[in-house]
């Protein structure tokens, strides 16, 4: 038993010695081939790694900081934009409310009347194919549907008529869009005349 063990041990212990010896010889040969390996090349990479690791950590911290600053900056920006969106939404609502109000029939009728327009209650049609007059044409009497205040609209209180606006008034008031219609007084001309049938 002990014999066996001793034998095994000797072989086991001898072989590494033998291998080591041969390996040392091999290393000695290599040293002879590649001459100087300065210790600095061994140590410098470690410093670089350490520095770069530290730099990385630093960069991450800085990036995180910047990101966080950015996000909070964004939060303020979003908040400001949201506020201005709300404000603009209010303006849009209020302006479109004004627009709808001034396009109410009461306002249009009152303005048309103020500009001297009258409605003609007897329609007549000219059939272009044969020139036939359909209906009984008569001139407008202007007596139709009297004053425009018979159908009240309390929203129009204080809205001036086009004729009551100061000349050239382009203010920011509710009815500021109206003068454009009022100034278009030039007679409408039809270039080639209306298409009409030949009358004999």
């Amino acid at each position: 038993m002990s014999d066996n063990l001793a034998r095994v041990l000797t072989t086991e212990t001898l072989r590494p010695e033998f291998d080591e010896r041969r390996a040392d010889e091999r290393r000695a040969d290599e040293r002879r081939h590649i001459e100087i390996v300065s210790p600095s090349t061994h140590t410098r990479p470690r410093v670089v790694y350490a520095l770069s690791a530290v730099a990385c950590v630093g960069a991450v911290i800085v990036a995180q900081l910047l990101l966080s600053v950015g996000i909070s900056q964004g939060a303020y920006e979003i908040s400001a934009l949201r506020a201005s969106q709300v404000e603009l939404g209010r303006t849009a609502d209020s302006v479109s409310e004004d627009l709808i109000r001034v396009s109410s029939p009461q306002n249009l009728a009152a303005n048309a009347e103020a500009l001297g327009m009258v409605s003609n209650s007897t329609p007549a049609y000219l059939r272009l194919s044969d020139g036939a007059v359909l209906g009984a044409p008569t001139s407008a009497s202007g007596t139709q549907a009297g004053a425009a205040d018979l159908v009240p609209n309390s929203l129009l209180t204080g809205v001036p008529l086009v004729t009551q606006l100061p000349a050239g008034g382009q203010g920011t008031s509710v009815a500021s869009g109206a003068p454009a219609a009022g100034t278009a007084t030039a007679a409408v001309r039809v270039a080639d005349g209306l298409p009409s049938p030949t009358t004999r």
Partner: protein
Amino acid sequence: MSSKRRIAATVVVLVAIIGVFVVRLVDIQVVRADTLSADSLGNRSVERTVYGSRGEILDANGVVLAGTVMRYDVALSPKNASPFTRTVDGVETSIPLAQSVAEIAAVVGLPTEKVQALISESLADNPKSDYALVARQVGVDAFRALSALDIPWLTFQQNPGRVYPNGAVAGNLVGFVSSAGEAQAGLEVGQDSCLASSNGSETYERGADGVRLPESTVTTEPPVDGSDVITTIDSDLQFFVQQVLAEQAQKTGAAWGNVVVQEVKTGKLVAVADYPSVDPNDVSATTNPDDRGSRAFTASYEPGSTFKALTAASVLDAGVATPESEVVAPFRYLPANGANINDSSAHGDLRLTLTGVLIESSNTGTSQFGERLTDQQRYDYMTKFGVGTETESGFPGEDPGILHPADKWDNQTEYATMFGQGLTTTALQVSSIYQTIANGGVRMPVQLVSGCRAANGTLTDVPAAEGTQVVSAEAARDTADILEMVYQKAWLADTWEIPGYRAAAKTGTAQMPDGNGGYSKGYLVSVSGFAPADDPQYVVSVSLADPVNMNSSAASAPVFQEVMSQVLKKYRAVPSGAAAPDLPDTW
């Protein structure tokens, strides 16, 4: 050995410290976790109402009749009402209480004393009073002006308001809502299930400076906007009709009146005008609550002679008469059953055809045609024409009118129902009778609302558009011809003439109940008709109640003429130029 002891001591201390940490950790993370996180959230999180907007009511062309706008309720805290500092041009200035009160009063349009009194009265009531409403539902401009004042004890609460851009145009139909936003009348009530919205809420977290933290918004409940109601009304025509009606009603001193314009082929109501009419923006300006609704839907009255068209259509459809059928119409007619019928003015015996009976609007003549049908037959025709039941319009509180079963009619009622007394109809029902006659005997369901349009454009609640044949096409045609003869030859022919067009019309002058079971001296004068007679497109039905200055249908005829002219012009109904029928009225 000493090192061993030192190690042991260190371990013990470490374990003790870790133990303390663990206990603390469990306490914070497990035991008090909910309370603590709720506390921290409470410091940061804000819950906010997100308003859903009530749907709009639109006319047939998309014109807004009722819309929702954001308004602001302005309140102040009386106990905190005191001078404060405001930065004016970079200088901190102290603003005395009197000045801020004056500034608030100027913006909301109240006398300064009133705002001052509001503060002092609230404080007298309760020295710790923290809330007093200054103004309800102010607009954006006023809200901005008030915010700019920077008064720390002035607060604002969003409160969506309802706006009716066209004022009283269709005001009686659209109805209105209370200041709390609850539907009160008209389509606002009738279509509330379509229009109603529900408010949602969202929670977000904010930093110490009030700025919302990114990505922290949690919508706990999304708001639901209401759907839009699309009516069949044409707001421009509605305006015109209301205008004409109001003018004539004021001229003739009528207590009230209404005009219905209905499309013949579809049964759609293009205009339903009432006088007086309510401006939904200013409901309190209309003092009589009855004037705040639409009598065209909710008031029934005895229609009078316009109803004779129904009797004529019935006898023609049953084949017991033709337009040329002859009767002798005396001033007074005493049927076998004991009734006593007379015409409105004394005359000798007239040899009239059915056409002539309608032209003269003879009650005695109509009675002699009506009695050719049994009571039950006439009752059945009436119900088929829609008398006695609400129309399909869906208007809230619509009056079905009174039509007693035929076996409940007494001797006089048996005859009176032939010429529109002894039963009641709404203006809508009369219009529907003429629509049926004009449309070849096919009665179309009366339509006021063409649907409920959701945000994604889908239209629901579209009303049925299937007509019912009430009388044969021939009977309807013959009745239309008779009514065209009435239009040409009746005593108002010059008043209601529309140059170039053929029309059909019939007047009515019905006694009005005095509220005590008898008749008052007032009359309900009406004209119903349609045009163009050769291809009917529109029914116009006019009623004026008790026009004291002109107590006959001559009061309503000009309204018919103006409205029908406008309708024909607006919808480009071109006159055909074909000759009008010429039926004999006497023999």
